Each structure stands twice: as C-alpha cells, then as structure tokens.
C-alpha cells in the first residue's frame, strides 16, 4: 500500500442502459466510502450494485454524475492496480490458464514483479493449486483467485463484489478477519452483498440501495437506531399504563397474546419514567433486540422502506 488513504465517492450517479427510455439501473445515487472502515454495499439482486461498482471502476460510463477514487475518475488514475484492487462477480479466468498464469498476466499489465504472484497465492491459500488450470477450480477457489488478483497491486482500496459466494463457513470466517485486518491497516474496503447477515459481522458502515436508489446510508448501528424500536412492557396494571402511554404523541401501543404491551415510538427509559410518575409497578421492561435482517428486508422490499 502506498500509505495514503483513499476514499471512494459516488455523486448523483445515474446509469440508463440502452437507448431512449432504456433500463434505469442506477438513479441519482450518492454516497462516500471512507478509508479505515469496511463498508457493506447492500441491496437485492438487480438493485444496481454491480452497475455502480462498474461505474466506479471505469468499466461502465455513467449516463450522468461522477464516480471518484481519491478525487479522480478511475480512468485517470496513474497506477490503477496499486490504488484499487477489485474482484467483480462477472470477472473471469481463461479455463486453460493456471492461476499463476492468470496472475502473471495481470502483474505484467501493471508492472508488478512475479515474486508478488507467489505472495498473493500464499496469502489466499492457493499456493498448492497455483499451477493447476483454473478450469478445474471450485467456486470457492475462484473466489480466492479473484481476491488474489485484487490484492496483487497491494492497493489502498479493495472493492469486492459478493466475495462470500461459494465460500465454506471456514472461508467466510477467514475472509471476515482478513477484511477487518485490511481496514485496520487504513485501507478502504467496499464489499457488496445481497444478504445483510453475510456481512453483518464484518462491516462498519452500510450503503443500502433498492431499484438503483439509495434507501439507507450510515454506520451499521445507526441503521438499527433509525428504525422505530419496539419496547416490551409487562405490568400488573397494564390497562392503566397503556392508556397513559397512548396519550403520548406518535406512539403506538398493542397488546400481545401473553398480555405484554408492545410500544413503539418511546424508549424504554421514557416508559420507565412514565410508569414511575404514574406509580405503576413494572415486571418487565426491555427494548427488543433488532433483527437487522428484518430491517434490511423491510428497507429493500418493493413496497416498504424508508423515504
């Protein structure tokens, strides 16, 4: 790594494929990806993730808007592979080429020494299989080779498209630690996925898109706090408590089958204070743990989602 931190920036990106009306893959999308953090780029299949990444990497020309790597368009980078390492889903290998051969081609195109090829093969655990033809590789081995290709230039930025596909649980755990350590070194790491749970333990920040539009952008913790949390309350005097809670503005109270109150719009502390003031005894008071996957599904489902 060259030592300088490089942020990624997407500014009002719009991409329409085809002529006339065409297919609107990405629509007025803006976000920043910061160095030293792992950012998850999330959305259902077909939501425009890959198109956005390909715009960032100069493979697809935007209809309007800009994509910048450290302030410059990718196509103007002086030494692209030393700045950005990318592993894209639809990027392939010639089946008749060995992993070592594939890497040596990429190394040649960026003036990288052959010794580095051996290094990255060892780094991703392909040292043994490196001299075999890629045609005989499993999906997981291909993912590792993609990652090795991305790491070849020791880049400041790593962009990985669905990197966990085809990896076994052991591989996923390895990838998680690996990405965390890269971010800890000050690198910028952007990982796309269509399942939040896959990257939930890895990412610091999330960018969530649906149908090419931004639906949520911020730290992973803000994703849950931004949602209306449900507080579960049990009280021997629940009817009186429900009444006084119901008088608060923009609060909803429902009762579940066990007689517990489910409150949204108030924090547990506020409810506790209210009960104390009303002299109502409480048996249970706790904020429901957020199921991030449910939040994610709500955000990205076709009808639902935040504004």
């Amino acid at each position: 790594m060259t030592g300088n931190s490089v942020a990624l920036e997407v500014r009002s990106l719009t991409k329409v494929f085809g002529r006339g009306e065409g297919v609107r893959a990405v629509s007025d999308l803006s976000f920043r990806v910061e160095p030293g953090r792992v950012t998850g780029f999330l959305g259902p299949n077909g939501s425009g993730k890959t198109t956005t990444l390909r715009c960032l990497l100069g493979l697809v020309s935007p209809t309007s808007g800009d994509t910048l790597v450290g302030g410059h368009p990718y196509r103007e980078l002086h030494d692209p592979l030393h700045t950005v390492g990318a592993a894209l889903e639809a990027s392939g290998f010639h089946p008749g080429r060995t992993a070592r051969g594939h890497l040596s081609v990429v190394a040649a195109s960026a003036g990288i020494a052959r010794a580095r090829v051996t290094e990255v093969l060892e780094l991703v655990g392909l040292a043994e299989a490196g001299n075999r033809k890629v045609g005989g590789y499993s999906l997981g081995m291909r993912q590792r080779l993609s990652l090795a290709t991305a790491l070849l230039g020791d880049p400041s930025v790593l962009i990985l498209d669905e990197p966990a596909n085809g990896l076994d649980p052991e591989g996923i755990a390895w990838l998680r630690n690996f990405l965390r350590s890269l971010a800890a070194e000050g690198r910028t790491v952007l990982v796309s996925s269509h399942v939040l749970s896959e990257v939930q333990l890895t990412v610091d920040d999330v960018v969530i898109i649906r149908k090419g539009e931004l639906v949520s952008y911020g730290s992973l913790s803000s994703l849950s706090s931004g949602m209306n949390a449900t507080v579960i309350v049990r009280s021997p005097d629940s009817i009186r408590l429900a009444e006084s809670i119901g008088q608060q503005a923009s609060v909803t109270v429902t009762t579940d089958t066990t007689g517990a109150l489910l409150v949204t719009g108030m924090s547990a502390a506020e409810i506790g204070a209210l009960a104390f003031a009303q002299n109502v005894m409480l048996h249970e008071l706790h904020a429901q743990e957020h199921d991030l996957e449910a939040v994610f599904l709500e955000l990205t489902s076709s009808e639902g989602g935040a504004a």
Partner: protein
Amino acid sequence: MNALRAEFRKVLTTKLALWLLAFSVAFTALNVLLMVYLVPTSARMVNSGQLLQIPAYVNSIVASCANASVFVLIIGIIGMTGEYRHMTITATFLASPRRAPVMVAKAVTYAVIGAIFGIINFAVSLGLATITLAGKEHAAIVPSESLQTLGGVILGFAIYAILGVAVGSLIRNQVAALIIALVFVFLIQPLLSAFVDWTTAWLPGGALDAVMNMTYRQGEATSGLLTAWAGGLLLIGYAVVLGVIASITTLKRDIT
C-alpha cells in the same frame, strides 16, 4: 509497454497458439503436396503435365503457405473474443483503464504472432517443395521470387491477425465471429471470385495472393491480380479501416 507485455503473456499462458501453429503447418504441408503430386497429374486439365515446367507455378508452390492465413485469422479472433467469452476483458481494462493503448498492444502482439506464423509456414512450404520436387523435372525455384513471398507472408499474415482481432472486437460472440469469418473465407470470397471476376483482386484473399506471389490456384493462373505493392497497400487499408471501426466501438463500450 506493460500492456504489450501482458498481451504476449496472455498468448504464452495458453496452448492455443501452439495448437493453431501445428494445424497451420500441417495445412501448408498438405497444400504443397497437392500442388506437387496431385494437381500436375489431374486429368481435368489438358496441360496439367506441363505445370511443373512453369516457373510461376513452381513459385506458387512455395507461396502456397498463403492458405494457412486462415489460422492466423482464427488466432486473432479467438484472442479477442476470448476476452469477452471468459470475461477476462474486465481484468484487462481494470489494469489499463485507458483502452486505446490496450487495443494497440493487442494489434501489435497479434501482428508479431501472425508474422512468426508466416515465417514458419514459409519455411515449411519452401523446404517441403524443395524436397518433393527433387528428382522431378521442374522449373527452378527462383530465390528472388521466394524472397518476395517471404516478405509477403510476413506482411500478409501480420495483417490477417490484426483483421482477426478487429473482427473479434466487432463480433464479440466467439462462435459467431469464427463462423462468419470462415464462411467469408471459404464460401463468400471464392463465390464472388468465381462469378464476379474483377472482385478477385480486391478481396483480402486476392490482395494476399498478390503480395505473396501466389499466382496459380487450382492449376490455373489467377487473372487480374494487383501488383505486390498494391496488394500490400490494399491489405493495410483493410486493417486500418476495420481496426479503426473496431477500436472506436471498443473504446466506448460498457463492460458488463
């Protein structure tokens, strides 16, 4: 320079080039054997027995490596369409986001490979012709004519390889590109030559024959070929026109 080194490494890390070279050499050998043993004994023509006494015919035996040009066309097509077929074009353009130098590097690489194919096939046709003609009564192989053939095969095969890259760049589907190119070489071109006489000289095959001094086909002198220089210029013209069209489309294309 990096792009050029990467292109050569691409060719050297698969076995395709070696296989195609082997096929081309076998094809050239077959052509020489046909022209030495079969055509002169064919009963179809009145004077076939005298063919080996005609200097232009004997020189055409040496130049019959021209027919191996189709393998050079194929290697260019596969080299380019393979990038799309296996999606290695993504890695190529990630490493070299400025696409014009990539296309130039590819053209130069395949031109060099085409020239090497040409030199090897020329050596095969010259060598095999010398051996098989020995002991027969035949007109001499003229060194200066063979030298022109050598120059022609280097230029012509380099151009054919570039044409292959250009065709592959325009028609990204590998199978479609190969079929269209082969149909053109083996069907459309011969039919046009047979039925519209004047086209012979102006088609790529005729230009290649002119520059390579390949003046006899099927035991008959080809009429109306351009001079070697004009043929060479015409070939270069084909490469420039097709190459520019292919480059412009490739430079703008979204890689998805």
